[in-house]
């Protein structure tokens, strides 16, 4: 790949990343990847009525409460990010 081509490919890639939240890239940290995974999982649970029911029965909570707590957890599913070392 010529350097010029790589340059244009990158801008496209950046555009795609901005458009499709959750897409990974080469410099993704473990924390970012995990956070994406958790957010995807949580939104999938909220998006499937059977899964929210399943969790609600196990936990003894109302379905609405389960959905709310799952959505809340999407804010920071894996705790604060690791401190940057620079």
């Amino acid at each position: 790949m010529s350097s010029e081509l790589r340059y244009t490919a990158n801008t496209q890639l950046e555009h795609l990343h901005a458009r499709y939240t959750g897409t990974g890239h080469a410099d993704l940290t473990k924390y970012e990847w995990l956070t994406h995974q958790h957010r995807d999982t949580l939104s999938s649970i909220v998006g499937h009525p059977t899964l929210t029911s399943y969790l609600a029965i196990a936990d003894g909570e109302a379905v609405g409460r389960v959905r709310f707590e799952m959505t809340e957890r999407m804010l920071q599913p894996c705790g604060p990010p690791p401190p940057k070392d620079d």
Partner: protein
Amino acid sequence: MHLYNLTLQPPTAITHAVAGNFSGSRTQEIVVSRGTRLELLRPDVQSGKVATVIASDVFGSIRSLAAFRLTGGTKDYVIVGSDSGRIVILDYDPKTSSFVKVHQETFGKSGARRIVPGQYLATDPKGRSVMIAAMEKAKLVYILNRDAAANLTISSPLEAHKNNAIIHHIVGLDVGFENPTFAALEVDYSESDQDPSGEAFNNAEKMLTYYELDLGLNHVVRKWSEPTDPRANLLVQVPGGQLATSDRYDGPSGVLVCCEDHIIYRHMDAPQHRVPIPRRRHPLEDPERGLIITAAVMHKMKGAFFFLLQSEEGDLYKVTIEHEEQDVKALKIKYFDTVPVASGLCILKSGFLFVASEFGNHYFYQFQKLGDDDNEPEFSSGDYPSYGMADPTAALPRAYFRPRALDNLTLVDELESLCPILDSKVMNLLPNSDTPQIFAACGRGARSTFRTLRHGLEVEEVVSSDLPGIPNAVWTTKLKEDDPYDSYIILSFVNGTLVLCIGETIEEVQDTGFLSSAPTLAVQQIGADALLQVHPHGIRHVLSDRRVNEWRVPSGKTIVCATTNKRQVVVALSSAELVYFELDLDGQLNEYQDRKAMGSTVLALSIAEVPEGRQRTPYLAVGCEDQTVRIVSLDPESTLETISLQALTAPPSAICIADMLDAGINKTQPTTFVNIGLQNGVLLRTVLDPVNGQLTDTRTRFLGTRPIRLLRVNIQRNPAILALSSRPWLNYTHQNFMHFTPLIFENLDYAWSFSAELCQEGLIGISGSLLRIFQIPKLGTKLKQDSIPLSYTPRKFIPHPHNGLLYLIEGDHRVMSEEAAAKQLQQLRESGRAVDEEMVNLPPEQFGRPKAPAGTWASCIRIISPLDAQTVNVIHLDNNEAAFSLAIVPFAAKNNELHLVVGTAQDTFLAPRSCTSGFLRTYRFTDDGRNLELLHKTETNDVPLAIMAFQGKLVAGVGKALRLYDIGKKKLLRKVENKTLGSTIVTLNTQGSRIIIGDMQESVFYAVYKPPENRLLVFADDVQPRWVTATTMLDYNTVVASDRFGNVFVNRLDAKISDQIDDDPTGAGILHEKGVLFGAPHKTAMLAHFHVGDIVTSLNKISLVAGGREVILYTCLHGTIGILVPFVSKEDVDLLTTLEQHMRTEQLSLVGRDHLAWRGYYVPVKAVVDGDLCESFAKLPANKQSSIAGELDRTVGEVLKKLEQLRVTASGF
């Protein structure tokens, strides 16, 4: 292996419900989503009953539902947000009684993804636009309008995206005719993702944002964004906008923001109002716990509006807003009533409230009053400083109310729901039953039930009375053609006839003109006002003035059978001759000049009812002893000529011609069916061609062991056929399709329609010397349910092998056990605190139990006698223990005496899973299994989630360890352990020395026990991770399992490997074999895979019809019951697979989901044909049907017959 999937009972849970005028008439209807099905419910305002009008499988997962109406329109449309990546607008067409897809706009990938819209829907109250949003970032706005021809149009989407924002809820704002505005509750995570200190996370603000759609610029702008309570979860629209006719405002506009413990009224440039959500003052309440609103509905009346909000405990609150024009003066909240926690609430203008429960039965209530002038404390924002917003970060002082029995609402109807089915077994435990019953542990919390499901229609007996003798037939008749109700009941005995008159009481009458000294063969109200009685020696035509014209049989002969309708009479004589009579225009009964000799004794006769506007029905069916049925013409041109002949396999016992609607055959006109009952209990159903009188499309069904008797009756003003054999069956039309279902009722010898003022749609029957009048209330249901109430959520149950009792374990998280609650109450009393006894004694079935902190459990073991539907005994567990598994084990060390072992755990936390100690409780059966005696408790280090009897010992899955226990004096003794399994063992199955282990995350493992060396070795596993929920062995090498995402799959081990493992005497070979892919040395192959769309909770291998093939029956969380039927021939596989392919191209999914993608949601569908899709072939228009049938080289009738045959032979449904 090829399987055919059939749904026996579609899901019964309701996930969303919206009300509206969907058929365009003045009556309001409710559209509900049952997860993968869309249903239209129509409440009857008079009777308060809710009936299903149509139900349609959407082959996709419905995630949101909204109703909207174009400005000035009278008809509501349904908008569906699903996992198809498309927005779909549906219109209910009352003419064809179906949902019609008006628009289907694609905007993204399919699947329930984070940034693909479909999760939330909000409509502009004036019907000008709709917003569809995802869980994160994406929000699309569509403009809805009318074109010149008044058709609904939809624009291309406008984006209102916000990056890095998690969306909690959206709602359409009521702004009148200003630009449509939507409110969204969002949290931005970009800062907290960057801040390692966690400060940004703690300070993250939940924003209430207004998005305005500028209709002029065709653009969406973020108009206003303000932080609100960080624990807000729900938005509710507040009416607003000016009326066109007056200057008055409908309301203040804005939104109610429902937060934990508070409700806030918010609007742009307006002061906020905040009130607390009143709580129950329960002595055992957890003060740390917040309370959120989970369901809400707003209702507008003339000049006023109110909200009903429901908390997660089920309490309804009435919220009102006091306002002057656009200025809010106060926000008020008060307790209204308590109903089950809902997934959807709908208020109808006719004064009803529909509560779609999240678990258990759904309820339909009628408003008695609106709680306006009662003594409930009301909390108003005006009573707090700065309308409750003096310090928005601090909570308002808590408000309390006392829950009470229903006061403002009364229950009028209940819709049965199996949701959730947590465990099931299929067994034949009931006496006199030739088909097995499904026993299902259903429900959640205190509203749980244990249900027995039997295939058949429920029958409601109205009256039953004893007769002096044993009659052999019964009829009812009107006196005149236009009488609304029946007047006489005629009973025929061996040597006489009894006539009863239906009045205020039922009494015998004498002077009716009927011959009472002979048995009766047929009774008919004939002509305008005459009656007809056929007896063995003649026919009596009783005129309205009681004159009797009698036709006498030539001497030496008798009448053996007869058939009548309003204008025609045919009798068969003992000399095998047919005599035909017809009513002329003067009301005179005339005999046709010739008699027809049949050549063989006539056993059965039937003619249809006279078609409307005709003189006669042209065909007569005659069943003869020579095992034939002949169709004889009654047409004046060719009277009594034989037209066609059908050979039978046994002599006929009854024939019945009936015109019934079956949209699979003919969508508009009723089809003439000739039903032939044989003496060996087989029923043949053929279609009579109205043009040439030929019999086509024969379908057979085995009904029972006795000769069949067929009777034409009326069910809901439609003709139906009652078929009586060793059990009664009903053949009827429901929602345009024909159903054939047994009645759950005693054997009947004869029956007839019965219509009186008090029982308008009844049936009358005789069984022995009993006369019974009954009704069939729930047409269309295929399973009759009988339930036993339970205390807590059922988890698992197991049948005793000998005594017919069932042992069930129940357990609820976040609920205090009775013992713990009593102890805590005692402490409170001792510490001098007043305990509100009334609150403590509230019935938990209605109000639930107070929520306790996580890690608190209430649990019990229940002994159930399914025969008399009763709880025999309950053993409560103490010390915060909860039961998770159970097994009945014949311990070899105790001479194979049966023991019940229950796996429990103390102080269990779910996430991450932990417990102070697990236990295996060993019980002895006492009192013939009606009681249990605890022998000992064995401690384990983790929760034993699965246990099973194995070769006179016990196998337990304790966490990730598989252990073998033998019984000891004080404990169970651990013999061997295997700890190489993936995560947590959830299911166990065994055959021989093989153990199949279902793992919570790692699919199915095959293990073997080698006694010589006492080794427990895993030798095969799956190549895919699977979150197993249920497993069952199909044969020694094959296992069917289901996972948490709604898939069912079949795995098989290679027979060679299986033999090799079994031939290894010590297991040394397996022990030293090298693992493959970081797992066991051998891998199983996947044979079949299918996405059901509902989480399968139990799998049974069972034969559902006597002598039928074994099928896999699965039950699911949302109430689905289905079967997987193995195909018997390659030919069937090819036919059905091709049919499925053709059906897929028809794009039947109402949400626009691709069928192949749906059934292969997580893994491509493999070797399973979707019977539900194939069966919708019957619903296709006739031209499509014939073109598909043509592609299959078959006729439409043959395809339909094949589909029915597959269903009937596999399930009997």
